[in-house]
């Protein structure tokens, strides 16, 4: 039996998902509706033979692009997902908006509601579809990455992780972030989408010469110039591009270390 590199990536992710499910009492998966978390959800269904045996959490900032919410509601129903939707209504009532500062807005509308859901449901593990090749601080992550009582990430003192033995013991009150896609590249994700025929939000495909390469909130997510209207064309485009994946994501660029600050405070 010959195995391709995609098979190897898939097997490793399935191994990680099963470790998380077996070793962690209360685990949930974040679903941002973006390509990576759609792939993650697909991998979970493979790992657990068609089942998703833990809650799927979507943090709704209310600023998401409408197509994303339509996609979420359609597939949550079709795939019978145990969906939890979170949000920070209080901050929204107070008029929270990117104009108040992008990092401030991300913290209020994404990080805070995520922490609240973790507290409320007593989750001790949260599965997140981040990848090393997306961005510098994510490149430093562990597959099983501990967060302290206030969900902060201590990137200066991370646990050792080798031979696929992960940190699965942790103090009460702390939790783990689990990153089953950490070792995937953007191109791998699209090749896997193509191979498995995984449904994607239309926003990724070019209209009038532009498309979204990374999805987030409408005010802070821009499009890139592209004529790729199919998955195959996106793959072709990525093979030669020199533009970074998160170039359309404004919150990363507010200051030199904006994304690092967001992540160390508990952002995904």
């Amino acid at each position, binding site marked *: 039996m010959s195995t391709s590199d995609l098979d190897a990536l*898939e097997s490793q992710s399935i191994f990680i998902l099963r470790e998380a499910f077996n070793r962690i009492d209360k685990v949930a998966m974040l679903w941002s509706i973006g390509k990576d978390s759609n792939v993650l959800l697909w991998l979970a269904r*493979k790992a*657990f033979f068609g089942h998703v045996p833990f809650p799927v959490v979507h943090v709704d900032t209310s600023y998401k692009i409408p197509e994303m919410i339509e996609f979420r509601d359609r597939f949550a129903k079709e795939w019978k997902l145990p969906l939890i939707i979170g949000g920070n209504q209080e901050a929204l009532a107070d008029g929270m908006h990117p104009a108040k500062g992008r990092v401030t807005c991300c913290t209020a509308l994404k990080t805070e509601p995520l922490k609240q859901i973790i507290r409320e449901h007593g989750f001790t593990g949260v599965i997140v579809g981040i990848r090393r090749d997306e961005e510098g601080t994510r490149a430093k992550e562990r597959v099983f990455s501990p967060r302290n009582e206030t969900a902060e990430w201590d*990137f200066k003192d991370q646990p050792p992780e080798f031979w696929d033995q992960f940190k699965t013991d942790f103090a009460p009150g702390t939790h783990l972030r689990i990153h089953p896609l950490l070792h995937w590249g953007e191109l791998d994700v699209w090749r896997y989408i193509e191979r498995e025929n995984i449904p994607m939000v239309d926003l990724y495909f070019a209209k009038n010469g532009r498309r979204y390469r990374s999805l987030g909130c409408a005010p802070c997510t821009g499009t890139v110039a592209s004529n790729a209207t199919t998955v195959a064309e996106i793959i072709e485009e990525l093979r030669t591009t020199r533009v970074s994946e998160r170039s359309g994501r404004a919150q990363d660029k507010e200051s030199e270390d904006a994304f690092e600050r967001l992540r160390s405070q508990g952002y995904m």
Partner: protein
Amino acid sequence: MPYDAAVLSNATALKIVIVGHVDHGKSTLVGRLLHETDSLPDGKTQSLREVCERRGMPFEWAFVVDALQAERDQGITIDIAHIPFRSRLRPYVIIDAPGHKEFLKNMITGAASADAAVLVIDAIEGVQEQSRRHGYLLHLLGLRQLAVVVNKMDAVDFSEQRFDEVSGEIRAYLAGIGVTPTQIIPVSARHGDNVVGRSGQMAWYVGPTVIEALDGFAPSIEPTELPLRFPVQDVFKFDHRRIIAGRVESGRLKVGDRLLFSPSGKTARVASIESWNSAVPAVSAAAGQSIGVTLDEQIFIERGQLASLVEAAPIEAELFRARLFWLGRAPLQSGRRYKLKLATAEHIVTVEKVERVIDVADLASVATDWVERNAVAEVVLRARSKVALDTFIDNPRTGRFVLVDNYDIVGGGVISMEGLPDRRCAPAQAAADLTSVAHKVTMGDRWKSNRHRGGILWLTGLSGSGKSTVAMEVERRLFQKGYQVFVLDGDNVRQGLNSDLGFGPEDRAENIRRVGEVAHLFAQAGMIVITAFISPYRADRDRARAIAPELFHEIFVDASVEECQRRDPKGLYAKARQGTIAEFTGLTAPYEPPLTPQLAIDTAALSVEEAVEEVLRYIERDVQRTEPVAAPPVRPDVAL
């Protein structure tokens, strides 16, 4: 650099770890490689140059790699970075590992996942402590492909003589640990000499450049030709199927193969290989694949068991040797207990002996019985029960383990069985020759007839905490109410059934195992059985629970060591203090309290009567809670 997209598109990236002493120029080499292979996103170099200008510092190629602000400030790479790039031949991921000694755990994290390594050595400073330590650890981690880069050649005027000195020094050290470097390359990473393009400054060097050396490495291959090792990761019962899930670590398996599960010795055949969203069902699987199988017999399987083919079983050992690297803040000490994780199994092990600590500088042995942080040592470990394992030489995947102390991974080791017996698991007779016979009287029938449910009340607590007192009184009171009830008491059972057992860890485990089985038989007979055993180890109690979790109720009889010593009803604490009892729970042997007991009774705060009332309340309210009585299924793999 132009490259062939068709070749690259589906090739697996080769993972290269860059190691070496702090400030010898690892990140600079990586930054330069990215630049010269045209692998940086547009504007990256420019924006970093601008940052440097704003901060009034000279631009360094290392900044490309050090994306974290903390690193730019301190000028050291504190964690690993994973950086993709491409040569003409194939894609790579560079793992840039920190050189600073205190970040050794990060270096190991990075290096363990690599296919090959590049060791960077400063031409001025030559071979330093971390150069040697990293070289040694790479070997211990199982990495067999290593190229050496002698960097900063510009600072020694591109001197061939200096290069020969440094390469001679490292070659001699590596030879001492059995490693031959694939290449030793003179480089100036800052100026790009011999990184991708050849250097005009070192005409005397005719070997490959760094990129050529990388392209010469062979990709790692999954060990499909070794004997089958399939560690059980989980058992899924999401639907009608009972799926044994796990990753094939080595070898192959196919539908129809008879699997032997070590160390239980149970066997069954692979009935199917399950999958989701796949058109054709798989009939075989090989190393590297995460799979799920169903078996032709419903044998008791749990996480941690190691499946193999019957004719090529792993070793089973309680005692084994290991060469390990230690990362714990507290030193590893002879006599201390740690949790060992090997593939998916977990075991409690005691350090029987520290045989030698290895000084990585000169490979000399140091005789101590502790191992300091970041040191390498040879030790002998003893597990409380049999561990299914291989020697590292025979099978790296199942010949290595990590140790956990409290919440942290504190070390990693590779196994050898030098001078120790090689015992293999044989298929258990029970599994091969016995089949369970169904009773014609069900447990539900018995419950109905008794007019109460059966179950096991497992009392655990220190000697003198009041287990027997409470158990005997609860028995009397339940009997008066018409319950079928019996107490299994520690001292009583040891005079008969377990009279052959002592008080060492293994015998204690066996004592509890037998009591668990007997209690289960009582419970299956419809009775309430109360056990009164110290049962100090959580793993032993968990095993007793696992026989029939739905019948098992753990009751923590809680009293402090001080309180129990004060009571000392059998005079045992006094004897233990005088040293006439060697391993005494609470004093010289550990007691692991239950984490989530069904009931905890504090006998220091409650009178005997009050404690008994609490247990009775629990039985009447929780054990008897639901009507009508529905019996759980009889454990399928027990021959009755």
